[in-house]
């Protein structure tokens, strides 16, 4: 039986908008085996609760979202990583937070757990006091003549989140990179439990500050689905406005940062100036530079201030006026091209098997964009155009990001003058239910899940695309010189806080 048919034989549990197929241990094992033969289903998220492990798959051709779960029996479930290597980090995280072990998992070393927590596993039904001292971290081996190791972090030289990078290098060529994260683990999922969706939304908005809007949208959609509530049309349209501003602002900052890592300060100055200009316009229009807590379950908490539309359009006009010149400088600077072209290449085949989503995927032949397929909210009413490149290097990621800036600006100019009138917020009753929500953040696909009981969160998960992007960064830098790592890293810009939870 193929993977999809196998799922149909499993029990369907109520979850909106996608029913959850709950599998027994043996059904799951058969499903994993079937997946090894079937590359049409891309793993998009994976997490657990006290008793089950949950997975999300996306079929990119027809936009089918598959939500499947498996009971954990005696602390074990059949590992997904042999069929989908991108499951490795999720399996390590599930083991650290809930204590479920992936049988036959490719790698079961701790990831988020550094041995410092007071009780482990923190989200298990019965955590136990942690009485052992932290052990030294274990890194993957690299063997060969003349290899040396460069440990970097958790505190880095720049203004950046903490994480430990273990480089193995031969001369200045990177042979292997391993990223060890978890330093920012704040116990966010545990804090959400027992809170109303409205209160818990503040945590979704602070999972990864640069994607505060996108995560808040995905969370709100999950909570709304669980309560069977639709936000008012004006709120849906405003969410798009917030999300597209966030996308432009992040890309402007990152493009500037990448170019600065190639020591081209003039261009960085201009990109970051435009970012600041847009953030100020956003503050005028919506009262907060990053629009934190602007999206809430049921709708949005702020309306467009009088004159806000003009301020945003003006910021876009100022950017548009300089855009061609910026692009021409990027195209015509040989010293810049020398650094970014064929640096940090992610092959299309690896991208296909990991489905990283976002601009990383689009620079390596993957067209996936949740705004288009399967679509959600106001995006169902508008067309989003996205180019796809195949080179997969730093240059391709910069070019995709530039194209996204242009497209998001177009969307804003389209949506802002046509904002529907009406209410901003729909009431969420204190019901019980399970809901799934998704949104396309600037990094890619974001998935949130909530189980609400009597109006309070019983369990939740917030999945940033960085889970599948970090391992690809490790591969993309292989064979590059150590000095180009900042360029590669910035061109990916995976979230640390987003996976540290």
């Amino acid at each position, binding site marked *: 039986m193929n993977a999809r048919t196998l799922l149909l034989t499993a029990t369907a549990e109520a979850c909106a908008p996608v029913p959850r197929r709950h599998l027994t241990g043996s059904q799951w094992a058969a499903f994993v085996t079937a997946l090894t033969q079937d590359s049409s289903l891309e793993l998009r998220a994976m997490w657990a609760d006290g008793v089950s492990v949950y997975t999300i798959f996306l079929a990119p051709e027809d936009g089918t979202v598959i939500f499947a779960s498996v009971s954990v029996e005696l602390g074990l479930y059949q590992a997904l990583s042999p069929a989908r290597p991108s499951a490795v980090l999720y399996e390590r995280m599930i083991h650290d937070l809930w204590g479920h072990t992936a049988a036959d998992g490719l790698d079961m070393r701790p990831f988020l757990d*550094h041995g*410092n*927590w*007071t*009780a482990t596993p*923190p989200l298990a039904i019965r955590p136990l006091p942690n009485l052992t001292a932290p052990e030294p971290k274990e890194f993957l081996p690299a063997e060969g003549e003349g290899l040396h190791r460069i440990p970097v972090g*958790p*505190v880095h*030289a*720049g*203004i*950046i*989140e*903490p994480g430990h990078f273990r480089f193995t290098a031969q001369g200045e060529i990177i042979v292997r990179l391993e990223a060890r994260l*978890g*330093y*920012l*683990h*704040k*116990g*966010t999922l*545990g*804090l959400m439990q027992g809170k109303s969706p409205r209160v818990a939304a*503040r*945590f979704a908005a*602070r*999972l*990864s*500050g*640069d994607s*505060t809007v996108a995560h808040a949208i995905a969370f709100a959609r999950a909570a709304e689905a669980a309560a069977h509530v639709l936000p008012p049309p004006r709120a849906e349209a405003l969410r798009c406005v917030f999300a597209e501003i966030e996308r432009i602002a992040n890309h402007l*900052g990152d493009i500037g940062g990448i170019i600065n890592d190639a020591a081209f300060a*003039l261009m960085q*100055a*201009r990109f*970051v*100036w435009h*970012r*600041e200009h847009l*953030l100020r316009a956003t503050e005028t229009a919506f009262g907060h*530079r*990053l629009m*934190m807590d602007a999206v809430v379950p049921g709708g949005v908490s702020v309306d467009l201030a009088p004159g806000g539309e003009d301020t945003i359009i003006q910021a876009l006009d100022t950017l548009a006026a300089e855009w061609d*010149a*910026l692009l*021409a*400088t990027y195209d015509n600077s040989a010293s810049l091209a020398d650094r970014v072209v064929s640096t940090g290449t992610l092959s299309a085949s690896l991208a296909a098997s990991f489905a990283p989503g976002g601009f990383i995927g689009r620079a390596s032949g993957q067209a996936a964009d949740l705004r288009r397929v399967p679509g959600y909210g106001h995006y169902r009413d508008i067309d989003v155009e996205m180019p796809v490149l195949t080179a997969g290097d730093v240059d391709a990621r910069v070019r995709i990001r530039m194209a996204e800036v242009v497209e998001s600006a177009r969307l804003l100019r389209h949506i802002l003058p046509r904002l529907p009138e009406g209410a901003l917020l729909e009431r969420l009753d204190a019901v019980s239910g399970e809901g799934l929500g998704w949104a396309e953040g600037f990094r890619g696909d974001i998935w949130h899940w909530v189980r609400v009981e009597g109006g309070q969160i019983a369990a939740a998960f917030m999945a940033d695309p960085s889970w599948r992007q970090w391992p690809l960064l490790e591969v993309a830098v292989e064979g590059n010189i150590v000095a180009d790592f900042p360029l590669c890293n910035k061109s990916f810009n995976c*979230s*640390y*806080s987003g996976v*540290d939870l």
Partner: protein
Amino acid sequence: MAWRTMWRALRDGPATEPAPAADPLLAESLAARLHAAAQRRLGRGLAIRQVDSGSCNGCELEIHMLGSIVYDLERLGLRFVASPRHADVLLVTGPVTRNMHDALLRSWAATPDPKFVVAVGDCAIDGGVFKGSTAIIGGIDAAVPVDAFVRGCPPTPAAILEVLCTLIEANTPPPERVRRI
């Protein structure tokens, strides 16, 4: 494009804005405390090391903007340095997670005395929304002594710059002292 941009900059003047005024009360109290130790050793200029001890990265986004041409903190004698060993100021964000506690203590110990610690953002003050989590130990002062706090989630670049300017004011030798040296 480079020439045109430079020409435009000459014509229109710089994009950089005037520095915000320092808060006189805070300046005074910090000045009193650090008077003896800081002025001779540091002079007018502070090297800043940023440490993220658990933030959501929102605070980092705004700290980043301080280096942009709009705020241009280097003209004020402030600059970001790559190591705590070169720093006068630790600019710390986020609650202190259990997994970052040790690294923060080590960064603090590596910063030569006299040093300032500025806690940036609501999380850094008392844990912010993460207060009560068993995975954090609290705000920054649960780990290291803090000299100044900046409110906000995240604070605006202007608010961060204001506190940094205040530190510089506190750190400038008063005229009579200069004469004596």
